[in-house]
């Protein structure tokens, strides 16, 4: 019997998809331990808890603990860390799970330090086993996978976005409210403003399909081809290599790879990308990989499930057309 606490991440009052993945992982861990409870901690402006209660319950939460305050509309690291640590300390939890998202990767180590425990970070699989939490974690930018053993209670882990598939496990969760353990108004680090980033299409971390472009596109305006292909898929985000973001053809936030975003969509289409190890580090776990490159010896073809050799300026428009047809049932 192990009770597990999760921090269910919200943005703008809505659950992020990683929140459901983490709840799913906690449900599995609790069930495997002989049936503990899953408690989901939610932070936000007043009303957030009630708004996300059903969705968390559908994925296996037994209790939703809503910590609501106008000052928590945006992520406040110090207040969230103090509140999460306090709940873990006083609630007798066996484990605490976070998403290894930008927010979770900031929050989880603070909570671990506050509790004087260690943290398994960015894990792709996890299992409570006796007095340990055993996890898988990619190391050396994905070139090896480590199996790690974490001892101590609570066992804290952050889970890589996309590593767990959100699944339903219907519950009717109780809703409880709790005050923040520290007032966000007294936090030393303050969010001054949210900055606009693009037109907030699908985020790379959540898109089922990614169309990524490389230096082979030759100029910023040619990314129109990539965008049109993404639009044809309907559910695709646009990514880029560092060569492209360095040249300012795309914003730095589009960069995929070792020093950019780590992604694992169902389908990754690499257009005019050579396949440098630093780029592969960010996308090698994608479900299906397609490469379009005029150099038949480009390293990307070693990783790609399907490749077309040739001029992207001829191939991509044709592919856009065929995908449109296929999706309209043609």
């Amino acid at each position, binding site marked *: 019997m192990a009770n597990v606490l999760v921090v269910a991440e919200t943005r703008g009052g809505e659950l992020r998809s990683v929140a459901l993945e983490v709840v799913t992982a906690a449900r599995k861990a609790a069930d495997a331990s002989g049936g503990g409870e899953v408690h989901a901690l939610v932070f936000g402006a007043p009303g957030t808890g009630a708004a996300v209660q059903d969705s968390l319950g559908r994925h296996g939460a037994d209790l939703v603990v809503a910590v609501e305050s106008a000052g928590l509309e945006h992520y406040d690291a110090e207040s969230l860390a103090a509140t999460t640590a306090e709940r873990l300390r006083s609630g007798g939890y066996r484990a605490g799970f976070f998403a290894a998202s930008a927010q979770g990767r900031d929050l989880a180590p603070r909570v671990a330090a506050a509790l004087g425990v*260690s943290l398994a970070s960015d894990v792709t699989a996890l299992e409570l086993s006796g007095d340990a939490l055993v996890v898988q974690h990619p190391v*050396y930018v994905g070139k*090896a996978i*480590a199996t*790690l053993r974490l001892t101590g209670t609570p066992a804290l882990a952050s889970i890589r976005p996309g590593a767990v598939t959100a699944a339903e496990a219907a519950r009717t969760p109780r809703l409880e409210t709790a005050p923040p353990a520290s007032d966000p108004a007294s936090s030393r680090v303050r969010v*001054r403003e949210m900055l606009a980033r693009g037109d*907030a299409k699908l985020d790379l971390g959540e898109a089922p399909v990614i169309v990524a472009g490389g230096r082979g596109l030759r100029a910023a305006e040619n990314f129109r081809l990539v965008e049109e292909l993404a639009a044809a898929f309907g559910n695709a985000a646009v990514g880029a290599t560092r060569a492209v973001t360095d040249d300012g053809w795309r914003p730095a936030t589009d960069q995929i790879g070792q*020093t950019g975003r780590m992604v694992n969509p169902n389908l990754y289409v690499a257009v005019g990308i050579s396949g440098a190890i630093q780029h592969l580090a960010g996308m090698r776990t994608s479900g299906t990989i397609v490469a379009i490159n005029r150099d038949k010896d480009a390293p990307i073809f070693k990783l790609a499930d399907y490749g077309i050799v040739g001029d992207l300026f001829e191939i991509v428009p044709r592919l856009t057309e065929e995908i449109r047809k296929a999706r309209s049932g043609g």
Partner: protein
Amino acid sequence: MKIAVCIKRVPDTEMRFAIAGDGKSLDQAGLKYDISDFDGYAVEVALRLTEKDGGEVAVICLGPDGVQETIRKAFSMGAARGVQLKADTVPFDGSAIAHALAAELRDGGYDLILFGRQSADAGNGTVGPMTAHLLGLPCVTAISHLELADGRGTAHRELEGSAESVEFPIPAVLTIDEGIARPRLPSLKGIMAAKKKTIDVRPAQLGEERLTVQSMALPPERAAGRIVGEGPDAVPELVRLLKTEAKVL
């Protein structure tokens, strides 16, 4: 401005890797080491700040004597001081490392303590915020932009499709994302000067290790892919395969 940068020595990830006989570490044969990528950015950020406003950059690196090479690389970029926290091996557990760094940094009188966003080997990204907590300092992670004025700082953090601008008091701990500053190449003058600098060596006061490596494996090979064809005429076949074989349409 007095700035400390905590740097890590990691295997060059461009190398071909093999797992050692113990089944839980890398085969050392032929491995080359270098400063971890984000830590290089952090050194660059520190150097630019002190070049602009005056001050001194110290680098701190935990590990066996091999890390002295990494410290000298930072010297050759322009770091003034270097400390080796000597340990036979570098623990995998970020909290054990943070303990040793906090002990070294506590009375150092630093205005800023910088880390890379995460290391290129373990990839945990935990040491910076854990060290900040142990030191009781404010911490901002994964920053892509930084400005300092009048004892306060402003930083940007990328948040998956969004970003925020945050304000913090100094002293503070910051972890550095890409996009702030590409590290400079060591100058010849820097390399010469680096040879003459001394490195302070002290034993690392590591914390308890509760996260340990049980085994390590290479990732499963992807099944060999295939070239569907050449030129736009191959597109219909590709779409057919995506639909019927990969089932992603």
